[in-house]
């Protein structure tokens, strides 16, 4: 096994095929003023960005140091380690000399880290504690050649101290030689101090001898000390030349400012020669000493622009690639402006941005990144394209594959369709998103008008699946045969294969999510898109959960409601139902912060550092901007059951609800929970709740503004807030009926229905039939609180939910 370290996401070999391993040094409170100031301002997010930038610029490992007088190093370091563990693909180097901090970090870091560092300065106390921790948590170790006498200056001393450390780490604590990275230290050759003239030589000698005499051990070097005191541009060149020489001497890894390392080929012969003379302390007869020559050589040069351009040439494409991957929009216009000098905008899109998005999609597919991060990348894509568009020819992109997207007739749900739009359009396709509730005739007309290559239809409801099925022959009769992609919560591959495919002449393809849609479009381009097929013999038939055989008690008492009839309630403080928000469903389901491949601790850190703060921010925003307008219409009505039907008496009129019945044991039907007229009749509750239309308007505004990530966040939030209001109101009604117990039901109870009675929404498994909305609307009269019904029985605004409230003690969810 080659020696390597690992992050949550990947392993990195310590001995790179092309050495050295680059360790980014900028996330260091002692080495970087910028990082220190951000840390002092408690701006961890920006600190993290410094770490991420180095990764984008090619660092294999990120060094992290938060030690600073007056700060709580342990708190700072563990916080940053948590954030980095989630956000960085590069493994971490934990840079601290405090054993306690190191132990705390190793404990929570999900991969194999490197500890920076141990030494013998205190005669061997801390080193033992840290070696023990390294052994326990399986970390690699940087060992500095320092003992009680101080930092080793000569090659001999460097080797001597390295051997002493080796015997403690390897012989005493059982670490492997390959777990050790010896840092021979270097001193500046730029100070003119006579005793340091051969500092570079001594360091290279130390590296050579450690590699020879401690086989298996690795070497590392904090490079930039070599040029301390010299001018910045000269430092870059000297550091780069020294790095090359040290690698030749056997150096495996270097701690550097990655952005400032120049490849040797980009350094002119003159610059290189004067640097080598300084490093090797080459005195030339009749000339000044190497340091003076070096300084004079560079004194005439300001920031050499040719050199700068060359450096940019090397990295700008990569910078853009990583900016997109990291969802980082800072400085995007500068990078694009530089790239535009060399590439056509369409090439920047097709050769850098689209492959980067593709890569993001692949990572998502492998479970390595989560949906919210994909959307942040898509935002960078969108922003880049917007910045490039003014410079593009009209013809550019004219031959991109064109897709028409619509939510089908009667369905108002557009989050699914819009996510498909976001993913497709930001992968370089031309998308015509013609909105919600689109009749088949309009889809046909627009498909012709825009000459699209594919049609994508979306719909959340069971009813929408039927609409799709019934529309297939219409598309065929219209003479279309382009592929139709179908997506939506109520669809299954079986339904598409058996009920939709036969009705149409072109391919009809089931797409489980936006990435499946993307895959289908790619398959179409490659000429291998085929209709969804379904093999009933190998297919898995899902279970039907629910109570299996149960005799319903007929002797349950009928509660006495506080009033009979309908009432409106409009003065509800969101604070009373916020505690009922199902945060698990919100974070994992609506927002897509699934645990994926991460461990429990990292997931906890993601929730604590990223998700929970977002949630709190949205709650505060909802208050501050008055985004929520909770309103309720509800009531209690005399009723009686007769077979599958429930007869409800409201304001002198009888309203009939016809509920479906299970086709298998125990043959349940919602009507069963109510007493018949012969049994003396019963009482039923109904409610309809909404959080108003303002939040929907704001969600729409975010989508229009290409704020994809915020869009997903606020939409998910609105869905769960609506459900929390419904859960809260259900609690109020149980309490009013005297079956509620206490009113402080927690979310857990709501999820598991740990209370008497049940609320059944229409369109859900116990009653998929939406026709039941009609009688409910007739007597709850929710028009007065701004709620209406579409022709397909959907409530508007979207953030609205209704239910029948059943008090029977055995009433629980089931599926018909």
């Amino acid at each position, binding site marked *: 096994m080659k020696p390597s370290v690992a992050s949550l996401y990947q392993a990195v070999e310590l001995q790179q095929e092309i050495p050295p391993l680059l360790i980014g040094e900028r996330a260091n409170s002692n080495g970087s003023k910028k990082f220190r100031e951000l840390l002092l301002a408690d701006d961890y997010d920006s600190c993290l960005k410094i770490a991420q930038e180095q990764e984008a610029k090619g660092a294999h490992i990120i060094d992290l140091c938060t030690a600073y007088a007056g700060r709580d190093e342990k708190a700072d370091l563990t916080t940053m380690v948590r954030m980095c563990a989630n956000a960085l693909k590069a493994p971490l180097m934990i840079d601290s000399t405090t054993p306690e901090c190191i132990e705390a970090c190793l404990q929570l870091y999900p991969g194999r880290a490197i500890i920076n560092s141990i030494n013998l300065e205190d005669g061997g106390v801390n080193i033992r504690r840290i070696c023990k921790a390294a052994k326990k948590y399986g970390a690699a170790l940087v060992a500095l050649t320092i003992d009680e006498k101080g930092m080793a200056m000569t090659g001999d001393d460097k080797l001597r101290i390295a051997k002493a450390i080796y015997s403690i780490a390897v012989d005493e604590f059982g670490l492997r030689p390959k777990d050790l990275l010896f840092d021979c230290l270097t001193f500046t050759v730029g100070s003119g101090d006579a005793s340091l003239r051969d500092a570079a030589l001594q360091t290279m000698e130390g590296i050579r001898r450690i590699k020879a005499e401690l086989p298996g051990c690795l070497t590392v070097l904090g490079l930039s000390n070599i040029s301390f005191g010299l001018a910045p541009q000269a430092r870059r060149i000297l550091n780069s030349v020294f790095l090359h020489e040290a690698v030749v001497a056997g150096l495996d890894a270097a701690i550097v400012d990655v952005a400032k390392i120049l490849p040797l080929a980009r350094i002119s012969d003159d610059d290189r020669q004067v640097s080598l003379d300084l490093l090797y302390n080459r005195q030339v007869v009749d000339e000044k000493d190497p340091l003076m020559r070096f300084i004079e050589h560079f004194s005439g040069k300001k920031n050499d622009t040719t050199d700068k351009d060359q450096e940019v040439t090397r990295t700008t494409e990569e910078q853009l690639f990583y900016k997109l991957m990291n969802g980082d929009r800072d400085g995007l216009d500068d990078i694009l402006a530089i790239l535009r000098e060399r590439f056509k905008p369409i090439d920047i899109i097709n050769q850098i941005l689209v492959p980067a998005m593709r890569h993001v999609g692949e990572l998502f597919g492998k479970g390595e990144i989560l949906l919210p991060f994909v959307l942040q990348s898509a935002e960078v894509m969108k922003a880049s394209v917007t910045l490039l568009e003014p410079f593009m020819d009209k013809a550019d992109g004219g031959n991109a594959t064109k897709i028409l997207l619509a939510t089908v007739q009667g369905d108002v749900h557009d989050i699914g369709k819009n996510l498909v739009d976001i993913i497709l359009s930001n992968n370089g396709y031309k998308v015509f998103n013609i909105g919600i509730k689109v009749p088949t005739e309009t889809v046909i007309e627009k498909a012709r008008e825009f000459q699209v290559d594919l049609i994508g239809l979306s719909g959340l409801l069971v009813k929408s699946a039927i609409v799709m099925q019934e529309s297939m022959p219409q598309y065929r009769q219209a003479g279309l045969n382009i592929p139709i992609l179908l997506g939506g919560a109520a669809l299954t591959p079986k339904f598409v294969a058996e009920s939709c495919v036969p009705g149409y002449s072109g391919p009809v393809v089931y797409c489980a999510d936006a990435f499946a849609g993307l895959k289908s479009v790619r398959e179409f381009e490659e000429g291998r898109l085929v209709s969804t097929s379904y093999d009933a013999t190998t297919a*898995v*038939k*899902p*279970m039907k*959960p*629910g*109570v*299996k055989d149960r005799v319903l008690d007929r002797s349950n008492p009928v509660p006495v409601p506080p009033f009979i009839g309908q009432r409106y309630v409009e003065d509800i403080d969101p604070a009373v139902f916020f505690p009922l928000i*199902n945060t*698990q*469903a919100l974070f*994992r*389901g609506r927002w897509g912060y*699934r*645990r*994926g491949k991460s461990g*429990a601790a990292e*997931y906890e850190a993601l929730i604590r550092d990223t998700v929970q703060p977002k949630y709190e921010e949205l709650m505060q925003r909802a208050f501050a901007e008055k985004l929520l307008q909770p309103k309720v219409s509800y009531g209690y009505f005399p009723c009686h059951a007769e077979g599958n039907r429930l007869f409800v008496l409201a304001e002198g009129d009888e309203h009939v609800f016809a509920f479906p019945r299970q086709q298998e044991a125990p043959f349940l039907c919602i009507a069963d929970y109510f007493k018949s007229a012969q049994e003396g009749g019963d009482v039923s509750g109904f409610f309809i709740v909404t959080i108003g239309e303002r939040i929907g308007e704001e969600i729409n505004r975010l989508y229009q503004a290409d704020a994809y990530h915020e869009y997903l966040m606020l939409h998910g939030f609105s869905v769960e807030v609506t459900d929390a209001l419904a859960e809260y109101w259900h609690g109020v009604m149980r309490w009013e009926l005297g079956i509620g117990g206490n009113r402080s039901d927690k*979310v857990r109870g709501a*999820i*598991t*229905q740990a209370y008497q009675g049940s609320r059944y929404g229409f369109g859900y*498994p116990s009653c998929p039939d939406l026709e039941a909305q009609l009688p409910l609307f007739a007597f709850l009269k929710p028009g007065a609180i701004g709620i209406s019904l579409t022709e397909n029985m959907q409530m508007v605004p979207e953030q609205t939910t209704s239910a029948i409230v059943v008090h029977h003690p055995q009433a629980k*969810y089931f*599926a018909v």
Partner: protein
Amino acid sequence: MMTVVNSCRYICANCGYIYDPGVGDSMNAIPAGVDFEVLPEEWICPLCYATNDQFDPLD
């Protein structure tokens, strides 16, 4: 007899229902002691009917 129980609970990402192998799932006729990993392929969330790939490990 000692049995090795991998007692990791799983949570439904869609609704928050928790499958606890120590409890099982009476709604789907799963007795206590069945690990999530060995539940039948056709097993779905007893509350919201999400398929088993919608579940995240909790412990």
